[in-house]
């Protein structure tokens, strides 16, 4: 059933608090002339009307999977909607999914890993989070959803920049990077970012995220964290033993998965000329080979965790122990 693989429709997920400018960005994407047509899945409590031929109202039905775990959830309505939209392939070039302000992005992301119909028909292009530069610091203090929306973002539109001073802007970027150093930050005033910086980015493509060196802040290790969500990353030089890695990561996700929001890795397995891309949202993991390594290229394996309560030394030792011996 691989004949439809090549026709996967890109999906952009738009998250962000009410009033941050999410709907403004959505309407810009829909109204500007870029020659692309989108199907839009909007939540029923949307701020403004959305003007588009193909708008679908969603109920945000979050379903637990029947393993009984609270973090293993999918968006049931999205599975239904995407299956419906796919029957009319050719009518649009991409899908945009808007979530409600308080939504946890995990169920949306997990839907793209879990459901076979959704996986066959679509690919997650990017999670774009729109935040209000003025109010984000306060939100991060009082809301786990705000932290999660930053943690899950591939691209962050730092909006309403006209309302903050240069110092405030630097501080809010620092807070964002502390949670998620891999997200690309785009400053904006009225969600006025170039549209090709948020659409068609292929940002969920692992190879691309991890090739980019994260924008870690100097002295990050010693800094006192302002929010409970943060990230760690490790690199090892020796090839990875696939069996050891699988045993370690499945045990880790099983026991710590509720706190691990996103895990991403690029792995060089012993005796394999290809790179393996691994990613997980909470406990739900996915992986694929992403092409040959060029002769002479460094073969450093790397893993990144974004989550709560990350035990840095323990994670480091665990990953290092996955290297082949000798």
């Amino acid at each position, binding site marked *: *059933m691989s004949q439809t693989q090549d026709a996967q429709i890109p999906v952009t997920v738009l998250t962000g608090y009410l009033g941050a400018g999410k709907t403004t960005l959505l309407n810009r994407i829909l109204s500007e002339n870029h020659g692309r047509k989108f199907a839009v899945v909007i939540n029923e409590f949307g701020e403004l009307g959305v003007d588009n031929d193909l708008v679908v109202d969603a*109920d945000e039905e979050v379903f637990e999977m029947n393993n009984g775990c609270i973090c293993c959830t999918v968006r049931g309505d999205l599975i239904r909607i995407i299956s419906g939209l796919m*029957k*009319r392939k050719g009518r649009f070039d991409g899908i945009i999914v808007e979530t409600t302000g308080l939504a946890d992005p995990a169920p949306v992301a997990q839907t793209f890993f879990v459901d076979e119909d959704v996986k066959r028909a679509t690919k997650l292009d990017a999670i774009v989070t729109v935040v209000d530069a003025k109010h984000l610091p306060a939100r991060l203090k009082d809301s786990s959803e705000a932290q999660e929306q930053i943690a899950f973002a591939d691209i962050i539109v730092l909006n309403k920049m006209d309302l903050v001073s240069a110092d405030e802007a630097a501080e809010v970027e620092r807070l964002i990077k502390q949670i998620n150093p891999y997200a690309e930050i785009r400053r904006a005033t009225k969600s006025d970012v170039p549209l090709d910086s948020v659409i068609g980015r292929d940002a969920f493509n692992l190879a691309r995220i991890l090739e980019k060196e994260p924008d870690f802040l100097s002295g990050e290790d010693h800094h006192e964290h302002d929010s409970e969500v943060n990230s760690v990353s490790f690199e090892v030089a020796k090839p990875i033993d696939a069996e050891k890695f699988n045993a370690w990561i499945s045990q880790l996700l099983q026991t710590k998965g509720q706190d691990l929001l996103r895990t991403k890795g690029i792995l060089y397995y012993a005796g394999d000329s290809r790179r393996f891309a691994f990613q997980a949202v909470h406990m739900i993991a996915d992986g694929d080979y992403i092409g040959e390594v060029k002769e002479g290229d460094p073969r450093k394996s790397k893993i990144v965790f974004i989550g709560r309560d990350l035990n840095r030394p323990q994670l480091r030792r665990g990953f290092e122990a996955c290297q082949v011996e000798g």
Partner: protein
Amino acid sequence: MADVAESDFLLATRGRAEELGAWVVGAVFDARNALAFALADGTLHLAGTTGDWKPVTAHDGAILSASADMQEGWLTGGDDGKLMRTAPDGATTTLADYKGKWVDHVAAHESGLRAAAVGKALHLLGPGGPLKTLAHPSSVGGIAFDTKGKRIAASHYNGASLWFVGAKEDKPRSLEWKGSHHAIAFSPDGTHVVTAMQEPSLHGWRLTDGQHMRMSGYPGKTRSLSFTARGRWLATSGAESIVLWPFFGGGPMGKAPTELAGGDAVFCTAVACHPQHEVVAAGFGDGLVLIAEIGSGKVVPVAPPSGSPVSALSWSPNGALLAFGTEAGRAGIIDLARRP
């Protein structure tokens, strides 16, 4: 089936196929054995073994679901929010307009009932118009009338609801099981309800005593469920073979399913049991269609692989005709009564 010559498929000698250019959502025979293909471009194609097929535009958008209407003609639900009836002559009537909300599932019963699932609501209509609306805790994943048209079952998150259509006070019997349920079927004698779940497994309820039945082991999601005429077997898609669960001799609990026509490493995507005999038709992910006799396991090739998954499959009520459609828009009809 890779080694079967094109001429050995029944389609070559007893049928015809056309390229209709859009995802075939339903291949639906009405009670009088007239066939229509319902397509995701909003059209119905009234089709037969001879003569030109007649296209009818029923929806401004995609058809999401299709069924036979009460005595004749077809019922369709669309992403334009409409419940439409198309008569055998191709005349269309708007039965209901749910204002842009998707009409995900439709069903009808010859006794004079129509049903349309729109999000969490299940609307029941009679020949004269709306009768009642039944509310569910989450979006409806599938609907089915029982054979007599006395009850309708609707699947949803954490189970299914069973409603008496004629009840004065609408209070469903809740069939509970954790998880998300979609495709749903009633056994022909009305004693069992079975659903397909998000996690690849089936769940069943024996209505007499509420006994739960778990049927698992599928590598893929089951989309299609079909009981044999007398309810002895439940045929299902979602594996690399046709998976049949025995509903006799104490089954399906504690019994292994029978698997037919497996071996090509392609998933079965649609099943349809013959209206009289213990024969099942199956469509696969590569477009292959075949018929299998359950007792003997004998397989007869019907249509060769066309490269696109079979998305619709059904028998005419008289059991003489079989129709199929694919995601890519190939639609076929085979006359099994006619001597080639």
